[in-house]
């Protein structure tokens, strides 16, 4: 037995794009042909000598082409090391791991995406998959909020989503500045702007823990059934494969049962949010 689940495949960073002062988008060559991920899954990223961290995959399988993208906030040792890298640098990859979004259940439905801040990173994987298969879904609504205009991720794609007739994309910032003439207010202030058919809507949200409570109230307040709401949760992970124990949410393992959870399933778990 030579191969170990803990040994990363070494590969190269193809491109690095600065998205904000804190976040960069890394395009990484898939270690073995295609990564073969589902939207919502994550990989364990190694910077040898520094360590390993779980990062959600930000690109959609429909746009793989031998590489994948990770949107990384500079916030710890591994992510600091990633931010110091130049294209061509080598990183280690394990995965993809975890349970992603149930895209088959979403076909034919109206989709309401509600990402906050960096929460757009994992949701973008699904959003672009949906955009690429636009005709198999109903309405596509995106309500995106960040702290300020300079924190908005994927500006080009946001512009494209806003411009498209078949996507309703509303953006807000908690605090505006002189460059901003859009909506100002927390993400929940966007919800009164839309009307939906809740029975046919599947909602997908991801953001900082504090945001979930308020966004969930809005989603439930619109009459969306709990079983039609999906969340992507963040946890500390050391193995990614259900052993190390760090990501446990009571009896659930974020790395295996999640990181995407159905709200009806997770809502009884006190430690979840």
């Amino acid at each position, binding site marked *: *037995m*030579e*191969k*170990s*689940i*803990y*040994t*990363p495949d*070494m590969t190269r960073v193809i491109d690095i794009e600065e998205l904000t002062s804190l976040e960069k988008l890394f395009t990484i060559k898939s270690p073995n042909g295609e990564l073969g991920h589902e939207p919502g899954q994550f990989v364990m990223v*190694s910077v*040898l*000598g*520094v*360590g*390993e*961290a779980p990062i959600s995959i930000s690109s959609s399988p429909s746009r793989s082409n031998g590489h994948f993208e990770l949107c990384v*906030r500079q*916030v*710890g040792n591994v*992510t600091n090391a990633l931010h110091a890298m130049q294209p061509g640098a*080598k990183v*280690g990859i394990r995965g993809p791991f975890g349970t992603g979004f149930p895209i088959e259940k979403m076909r034919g439905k109206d989709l309401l995406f509600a990402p906050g801040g960096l929460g757009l990173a994992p949701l973008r994987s699904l959003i672009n998959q949906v955009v690429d298969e636009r005709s198999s879904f109903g309405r596509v609504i995106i309500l995106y909020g960040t702290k300020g205009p300079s924190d908005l991720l994927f500006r080009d794609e946001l512009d494209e989503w806003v411009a498209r007739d078949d996507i309703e994309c509303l953006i807000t910032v908690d605090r505006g500045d002189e460059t901003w003439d859009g909506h100002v207010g927390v993400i929940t202030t966007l919800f009164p702007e839309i009307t939906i058919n809740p029975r046919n809507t599947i909602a997908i949200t991801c953001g*900082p*823990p504090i945001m979930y409570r308020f966004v969930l109230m809005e989603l439930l307040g619109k009459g969306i059934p709990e079983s039609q709401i999906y969340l992507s949760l*963040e*946890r*500390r992970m*050391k*193995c990614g*494969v*259900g*052993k*190390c*124990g*760090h990501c*446990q*949410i*009571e*009896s659930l393992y974020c790395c*295996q049962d999640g990181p995407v959870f159905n709200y009806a399933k997770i809502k009884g778990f*006190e*430690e979840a949010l």
Partner: protein
Amino acid sequence: MNLKVLDKRAIAPLVEALMDDYRVVGPQAKGSKFTFEAVTDPANLRFDYDTTILPPKKVLLPPQERLATFTLQEDLQVKTVLETEPTVLLGVHTCDLKAIQLLDEVFSKDFPDAQYLAQREQTILISLECLSPCDEHSFCKDMGTLTASEGSDIHLTEIDSAYIVDATTEAGEELLARYATVRDATEADMQKLNKELGAKWPKFNYQLDFETAKLPSMLEAAFEHPLWNDLGDRCLACGSCTNVCPTCYCFNVYDEVDMLLTKGTRSRNWDSCQLDEFARVAGGENFREARAARQRHRLMRKGKYIYEKFDELGCVGCGRCIRTCTAKISIVESFNTIHNGKK
């Protein structure tokens, strides 16, 4: 295979012979306590040990273990490390044996753990029947681990000046045939065995006020129990309880680099859900910040979460966490408090 008899005087020669081909690990005295250590002199083996400070899991899941090595030269390369050694693990009590069976399940399921399994495959287990309790803290009788019919390769039961030897696997039979001087058990030996095994059970007390089958559902209803705050107030968050637990297997993974920054190793070490940073994410959020929540997590794992994932309770009743706790937190008292509070 029929039961055999191993004279106590034949143990030293047996261990000597095994030491030629194996690392032999068994219980030995360390001050006033006992530990599982590699045997250098068979005379130091203490089959009369009560319990050990650390459980024998340390042989299969070492406190520190290399997972991979890597080079940091131009062409970064990473290489899997599997450090294994043919080992005979000797004198394992049946509570610890049950724990090893659980670890086997944990590390084989879903994503097999190459490091654990490589060492496990090279390990022969010789278990030892307990004929009297270690001390007042063991509750193996409650947890159903006071004896074991499977899990080891050879099982030993003391009868006077000898051991009844039960080889329960092929590996165990081969080991006996190759290294041990044993004779077939006679009718008289069998009578002694029956007498010992019959006499042992009354010596062990039940410590829990309820049937352990109730534990998962009892804990399910106890998520908001006031006990957790009481434990949280007392707990020093030192992590000793999880370190000494034979079924705790959580780990941390870390990289180390040599002085010249040319190469390094990735290793894992035992981690503890009782430590502050265990569930803290990079963004700063800590999902079990309160010690109460961490104590609850530990006991929930032992009595509920592990059961839900592996169909076995995560506690074998060895009592080590009770003995080691500076704050005198007792898993037995805690479970009883929850049960009795429900009446």
